[in-house]
């Protein structure tokens, strides 16, 4: 398949003020309409159009610097597009005030490439920090300093689910890289999100662990009906676990479709040497 972005859904317009009321509570929907992002004069993303349906799982693939992280940050409203628009749950983000924007962010779990944990916190505090977006300042002081029994139990259950239940009271910087990554995932899940966004989750761990982690994330997303968007440069992993692939290169979406329809030629084009500083030919099927 060599098509560009697939046609935008017309049944629910992003700008439709009523459509979002029918949004499924458990899974988020995302739309990009010709979204572009310019960082200090350089276009990190250009003319990106994409529709992610509730509960869908897709992988963003492409070489580093292709715009994968920028696209993810648009989806959780961390940055605003320079051109075009972004919709989450059928609402345009640029129409929302600061409080509504916070509410949108609070529903989207984001696992950063550098994990962005607080090393001198206990694991419990890092996980509970995921819920700050839903709390007043007074409530968050209480939750962070004196977590209630129910909060501790919920954090423990999530840590159990991601495979590090016994680490609840350990200091975060005493854990291995793979364990810390699971803490970051647990923090995102503690948000009770309707979507999970993961930025290059396999870049910091060895291949076997990477596979386990992607497997775990895909499982959890299915189990909870979460919309899942993962940026990943390992094509084999992407093909194994995601039914839909979106290829990015030089800030543009170059292909978007069901995994089975993405051929070797698409991937070769994605990682070809022209104009790229870094390529990974070995990963191309």
């Amino acid at each position, binding site marked *: 398949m060599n098509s560009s972005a697939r046609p935008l859904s017309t049944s629910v317009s992003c700008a439709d003020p009523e459509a979002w009321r029918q949004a499924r509570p458990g899974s988020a929907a995302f739309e990009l309409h010709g979204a572009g992002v310019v960082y200090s004069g350089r276009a990190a993303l250009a003319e990106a159009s994409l529709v992610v349906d509730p509960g869908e799982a897709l992988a963003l693939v492409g070489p580093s610097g292709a715009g994968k992280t920028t696209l993810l*940050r648009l989806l959780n*409203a961390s940055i605003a597009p320079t051109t075009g628009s972004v919709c989450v749950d059928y609402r345009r983000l640029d129409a929302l005030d600061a409080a509504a924007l916070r509410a949108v962010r609070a529903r*989207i779990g984001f696992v950063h490439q550098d994990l*962005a944990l607080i090393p001198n916190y206990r694991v419990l505090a890092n996980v509970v920090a995921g819920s700050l977006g839903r709390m007043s300042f007074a409530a968050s002081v209480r939750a962070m300093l004196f977590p209630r029994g129910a909060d501790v139990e919920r954090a423990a259950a999530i840590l159990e689910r991601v495979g590090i239940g016994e680490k609840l009271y350990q200091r975060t910087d005493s854990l291995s890289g793979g364990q810390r990554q699971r803490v970051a995932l647990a923090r995102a899940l503690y*948000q009770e999100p309707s979507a999970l966004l993961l930025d290059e989750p396999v870049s910091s761990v060895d291949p076997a662990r990477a596979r386990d982690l992607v497997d775990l994330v895909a499982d959890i997303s299915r189990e909870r009906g979460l919309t899942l968007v993962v940026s990943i440069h390992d094509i084999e992993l992407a093909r194994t676990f995601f039914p839909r692939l979106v290829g990015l290169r030089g800030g543009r979406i170059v292909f978007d479709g069901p995994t089975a329809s993405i051929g070797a030629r698409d991937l070769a084009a994605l990682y070809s040497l022209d104009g790229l500083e870094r390529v990974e030919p070995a990963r191309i099927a």
Partner: protein
Amino acid sequence: MLSIVVAGFAAWLTLDAPLAKLVPQEGGLRIAREFFARAVTPALDYESPVPESTPHILIQALAAARRTLVFAAAGMSLALVLGIVLGFFATSAWWAGESSGGTSPLRRALARTVGPAVWTVSRVLIVVMRSVHELLWAVLFLAAFGLNTGGAVAAIAIPYGGTLAKIYSEMIEEAPRDAALALRGAGAGPVQVFFFALVPRAGPDLAAYTFYRFECAVRSAAVLGFFGFPTLGYAIAQSFENLHYGEVWTYMYALILLVVAIEVWSGALRRRFVA
């Protein structure tokens, strides 16, 4: 760096080689010898008759050390509140990164003006508080209120609050922003981001610096005794005036012990919570 060296040379020339004057006269040398000779034999009793009711000198030294600690703790706790509040307003990290995406033009205009205005006012306030030394504040409060305990506490709290605010805000600005961005991305507000991501990220440095300033506060409280506040400095000044060098050393050792005790305590706390 170079400009500091140049300024240093200029200062030396202006002051006409001050070190040459440190070679003491015959009389001065004798007093210095006498004074330092007593370092190994601090007084274990008063060197002149005292009234019956006066407690033993070691009890007296301990009591003065305790009062020094109380003054320092009172000043420091007030300084801590000032430092945290002003440090918060003098830090741009929690509002400067706030995404303007989707907020109304009015809010954006407010964010552009109010944030920097509050920041500037706090910075100026901090400079004013810091630029006057605690001893000068003490003189000022003595003139205004007389020998008043509150004056001594405020004399420590004001410059220390300013210094804490300055250093806190600098440490927080320089701490990694990754966790702050992550929590903001999870919907946390700027105040939550400040206290639960920026401050903890700088936590170990903040704690170490606060302990160091507490030590400084103990020394300042001791020196405030020279103005008549009942700390170790008061006892030292009195004994010095009476040429009771042994007693001076007894009180000096009490001060050194106090500082060492704080060092040991802060070290233990740091090992437990930070390392």
